[in-house]
């Protein structure tokens, strides 16, 4: 495990500071209260130091990547909203969410070193996740842009699916680790395909179907894609049988075809993906067309902070933040952001490979796969490589639930990497950099 990451962390904080300085000095933006910046940087440094002291074998490189991504996110959110009436305080709100997320991460780091006991409650996690996701259908839930995904709890609104997905990954990891041997074994064959005994699939299939049905009813396409793909990938990793991947592709094809024919809003998305240009001024395609114009405008090195026109994209600070990064930091900056995601995912897979027991391996793999697919879905959607489905860009996009959820995920990876790094270190007496 890469245990020290002081230099990358400092670089990430410097980048954020420079970004804000550019906006304030060159663009003449009103500086947000300095206390927010100080507490943001202070919190990340505290998290880093506590992790280094308390979990000496953990992969601190993850924290440096988190610092860079949240930093770029803050700079872009501030740049996109500081002069927009009504939402000019979005960046400071995001800082508050990052502070809450970091506090949760600290809590996990301090008290969940023995994360294995989470697996004892796997069925509870699955049940809680489903109930939590279903709760948006109650009067507490409310609708934004045609998708009823948010829950009002007092002054804050949260998006249950952001948390439910982590609980579900814990469930899948715990269950599959218990049953993977019997699931890998074959008991009969059908049309020449070896089929495992179906009874072991009951719980996984029930949770999987329930979560998908809920998301489809809620019109949440991006999340349904995530909740569809991650369990299948985990099943493949747990059993090593390509049959599950093939089955997944077939199910995906059937599901996609059904959705295309029966859900009107999917047809619009596909049309906006295949050929948005004739409808550039209409609601369906305006966002994606503006996003493409912005990315093109950025060129290789970008327009420079504050010089782009990405405020023309509706909802740019959440789903489309990658377009504004590409516009103002250019191809080079957007590449750095993607590389940072790649490093995060690489570290996650590495942690999964080094982890000693199957449940930890699967948990690390599951959260990493979720993180990777989420990034892929939204970056692909924004660049019109795949049909657009709304998910946030982890850590970068504005959004409380998304930020806190991503911090929880990072906390889990940290505690898994501590245990894996410790076992690995004692085995080979390897002294990490």
């Amino acid at each position: 495990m890469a245990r020290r990451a002081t230099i990358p962390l400092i670089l990430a904080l410097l980048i954020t500071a420079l970004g804000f300085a550019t906006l304030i000095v060159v663009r003449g933006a009103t500086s947000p209260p300095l206390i927010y910046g100080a507490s943001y940087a202070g919190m990340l440094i505290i998290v880093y130091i506590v992790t280094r002291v308390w979990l000496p074998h953990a992969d601190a490189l993850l924290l440096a990547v988190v610092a860079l991504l949240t930093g770029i996110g803050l700079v872009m959110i501030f740049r996109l909203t500081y002069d927009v009436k009504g939402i000019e305080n979005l960046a400071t709100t995001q800082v508050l969410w990052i502070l809450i997320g970091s506090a949760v991460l600290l809590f996990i780091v301090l008290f969940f070193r023995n994360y294995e006991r989470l697996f004892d409650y796997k069925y509870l996690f699955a049940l809680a996740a489903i109930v939590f996701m279903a709760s948006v259908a109650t009067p507490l839930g409310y609708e934004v842009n045609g998708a009823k995904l948010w829950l009002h709890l007092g002054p804050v609104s949260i998006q249950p699916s952001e948390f439910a997905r982590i609980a579900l990954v814990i469930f899948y990891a715990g269950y599959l680790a218990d049953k993977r041997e019997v699931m890998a074994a074959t008991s009969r064959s059908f049309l020449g395909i070896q089929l495992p005994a179906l009874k072991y699939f009951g719980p996984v299939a029930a949770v999987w179907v329930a979560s998908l049905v809920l998301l489809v009813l809620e019109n949440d396409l991006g999340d349904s894609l995530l909740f569809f793909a991650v369990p299948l990938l985990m099943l493949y990793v747990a059993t090593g049988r390509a049959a599950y991947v093939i089955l997944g592709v077939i199910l995906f094809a059937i599901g996609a075809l059904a959705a295309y024919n029966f859900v009107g809003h999917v047809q619009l998305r596909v049309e906006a993906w295949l050929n948005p240009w004739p409808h550039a001024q209409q609601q369906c395609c305006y966002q994606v067309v503006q996003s493409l114009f912005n990315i093109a405008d950025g060129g290789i090195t970008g327009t420079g902070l504050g010089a782009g026109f990405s405020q023309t994209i509706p909802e740019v600070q959440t789903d489309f933040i990658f377009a504004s990064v590409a516009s103002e930091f250019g191809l080079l900056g957007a590449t750095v952001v993607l590389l940072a995601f790649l490093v995060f995912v690489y570290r996650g897979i590495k942690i999964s490979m080094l982890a000693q027991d199957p449940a930890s391996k699967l948990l690390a793999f599951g959260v990493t796969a979720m993180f990777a697919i989420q990034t892929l879905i939204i970056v692909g959607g924004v660049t019109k490589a795949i049909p657009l489905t709304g998910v946030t860009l982890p850590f970068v996009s504005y959004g409380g639930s998304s930020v806190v959820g991503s911090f929880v995920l990072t906390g889990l990876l940290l505690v898994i990497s501590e245990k894996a790094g410790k076992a690995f270190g004692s085995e080979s007496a390897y002294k990490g950099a």
Partner: protein
Amino acid sequence: MDLQIPLLAAKALLLLLLFAFIYAVVRRGIGDLRSIPDDEPYRPGAPAPAREDRHRIISKGIPEMVVESSDILAPDTRFPIGDGTMSIGRSSSSDVVLKSDDYVSGRHARITHHADLLYIEDLNSTNGTFVNDRKTIGATPLRSGDTVRIGSTIFRYVE
């Protein structure tokens, strides 16, 4: 116009720092990569990573069951699994006959192959089949070096 130069400078510096970050992060990542020994590929059903103390027997490429210790068979007796299947039991029609071991059922276990892996499967025997001292449930994939215990006989599976 006077804003152009500081903006350009800020932009260049920002990109430089971004790549410095990636360089710093990737350098650590790769240092880490180099120091990892050749990982055994993660296979389902595999026991914990092979320990150093486990002595390996080199064979000629054909998977074999080698007797480690037994009350009834001579140690180091080799049973090649030529066509990828093998039946083990007390009955004389078995490929590996464990006669006069009261803890072995007539048709005790069989080895089957599927997708490059050999699996051992207990055939509802009375006393069970143990791979690396763990009782098997259903077909269990075998990896070179695994021990298989049936009755009093311990085999080592080698590829």
